């Protein structure tokens, strides 16, 4: 049957199923040509976009890394007392640590930032009289405080897990040697706990880098904030893809570096060297 024939309106004839003929290849070539042309134009557009806004992305990455770095440092320091308080034998201290951890792990980071940044405005006279208003006025500092407190809670739990995983024999041995509590903490417990907690802490760093993206919501120009700004100016959706690539790269590098660090900190796991 002639394929250009008309159809009876009520049924689908079997030979309506297409069969390749020469016009198929003409159509394919035309299609591929238009795709190639589109790619060429798009490529020029991308070069222009990155030339114009690339530095903003890099500046944003800098801000992200800076904020994450500072809050990880503060949070890491705070995590030690949090973990110790969580393991304390004194009830009220333990309850305090538990509720701190429960609050910061049980609420969204976004809500914590809002609570600190906007919430502090409600107590402005108090902060002004305490001389703290210049800190709580700035979105940057408020976000940093929220990040630090948040990561301190998570890191505290990780550290607690590490401390609890230390073989009791090591602690007994330290006691038998007559180490003081502080010395034992510094020489035996914390070094062992850090080593055990290392993989989990690597995850926490990655979570923190990813979580830091919501700083954008309070107008901070981190990588995500810059991306949104560029998008608002250029209306180029692709900028989100570039931001995604940068985030992926950062997490990838960090995972690799962390694997190296773990290997370096755990020499006992290395295969024995050939004599």
């Amino acid at each position, binding site marked *: 049957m002639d394929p*250009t024939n008309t*159809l009876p*309106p009520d049924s*689908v004839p079997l030979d309506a199923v297409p069969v390749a003929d020469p016009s198929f290849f003409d159509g394919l070539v035309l299609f591929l040509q238009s795709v190639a042309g589109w790619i060429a134009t798009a490529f020029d557009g991308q070069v222009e976009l990155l030339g114009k806004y690339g530095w903003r992305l890099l500046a944003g990455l800098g801000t992200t890394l800076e904020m994450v770095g500072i809050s990880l440092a503060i949070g890491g320091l705070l995590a030690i007392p949090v973990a110790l308080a969580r393991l304390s034998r004194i009830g009220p201290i333990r309850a305090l640590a538990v509720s701190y951890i429960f609050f910061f792990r049980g609420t*969204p980071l976004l809500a914590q930032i809002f609570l600190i940044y906007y919430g502090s405005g409600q107590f402005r006279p108090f902060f002004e009289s305490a001389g703290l208003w210049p800190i709580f006025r700035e979105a940057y500092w408020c976000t940093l405080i929220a990040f630090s407190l948040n990561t301190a809670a998570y890191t505290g739990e990780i550290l607690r897990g590490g401390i609890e995983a230390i073989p009791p024999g090591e602690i007994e041995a330290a006691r038998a040697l007559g180490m003081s509590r502080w010395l034992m903490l510094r020489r035996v417990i914390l070094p062992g706990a850090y080593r055990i907690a290392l993989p989990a802490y690597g995850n926490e760093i990655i979570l923190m880098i990813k*979580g830091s993206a919501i700083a954008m919501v309070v107008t901070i120009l981190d990588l995500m904030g810059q991306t949104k700004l560029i998008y608002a100016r250029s209306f180029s959706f692709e900028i989100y893809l570039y931001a995604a690539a940068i985030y992926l790269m950062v997490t990838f590098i960090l995972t690799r570096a962390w694997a190296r660090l773990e290997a370096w900190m755990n020499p006992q796991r290395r295969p024995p060297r050939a004599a």
Partner: protein
Amino acid sequence: MDPVAAAPLSAGFGDIVGWLLAAVIALVHGIVLLAGALWWLLGLLFWPVGQVLGFAVDILGAVFGWIGTVIYDVIADVAPGATFYIDLISFGKGGWGDDLWVGLQLTLKLAVVSLSIGLSIGLLGAGAKLAPSRALNFIGNAYTTLIRGLPELLTLMLIYYGLLFGLQGLLSTGFLPMVCDGAGLADKLALIGLGEDTARICVSTTVEIDGFTAGVVALSLVFGAFSTEVLRGAILAVPKGQLEAARAIGMSRRLTIRRILLPQVWRYALPGLGNLWLIMIKDTSLVSVIALDELMRKTSIAVGVTKQPFFFYGMACLVYLAITGVSMIATTRIERWASRGVRRI
């Protein structure tokens, strides 16, 4: 002119594309129909439950309402200043309780829908990662690496703007009408009885992606990626000897999966999945950024009107804490139930 009578049936490139598109559209219709039928059936099945629950809620509401007014009066006597804040979260006029409640419902809906879709994706992903096919392994790995490496907020933005402007861009360039014409889509849709779709797909000039859809897609993808890893670990945690034993006594592959593997995978995966659920509850707050009126955004609206940021964001935090707290209790219960036959040391 009858569009069907004019259908060109030359088997060119355009026609193949056209038939493919028509098939995809028909498939989407099928899925939507099926989902609708399921939803209807569920509604029918649970209608009595809903009635009973509704009745119980009414009674409880009345009782608690009465207790509430008594307590309120006492507080008004003791500390008149405190009633200002209670009024703020009341359900009545001038109170924001009902708004927050609506937001909370949306938050929970978002989380539950994303959980079910995400779990299905996770099962598929774990299957793909453990399949003996290299191509499937690659797809699984690429998916989890990509999604787990991206900030959830960025995933959400990519999905939201990607869907929105991807579709809008297609429409504004006249690309879609061109494709429709070139592929003779109108005729083909008319042939398979979906003629009404032509106007919607080929002629329309605006698209709307609502925040809920984008949120569900993004959260499901995120949950799917992380649960892929959890489920993969759980599948690998089932002792190999058991599977070998099942094979030795002549169980079929399917039976082994159903009787030996899945019941234990479920148990091994529960703690991890519980954690992911908590993370997802918290991630739903990100959807407020794309203007979906869930709990966080309702709270922000309340703050904008009342100028009580600390109070309202604190309330929102308490609500999230309540959800996570209840979820934690529930997951430990479920875990205990799931491992009831396991010897404890």
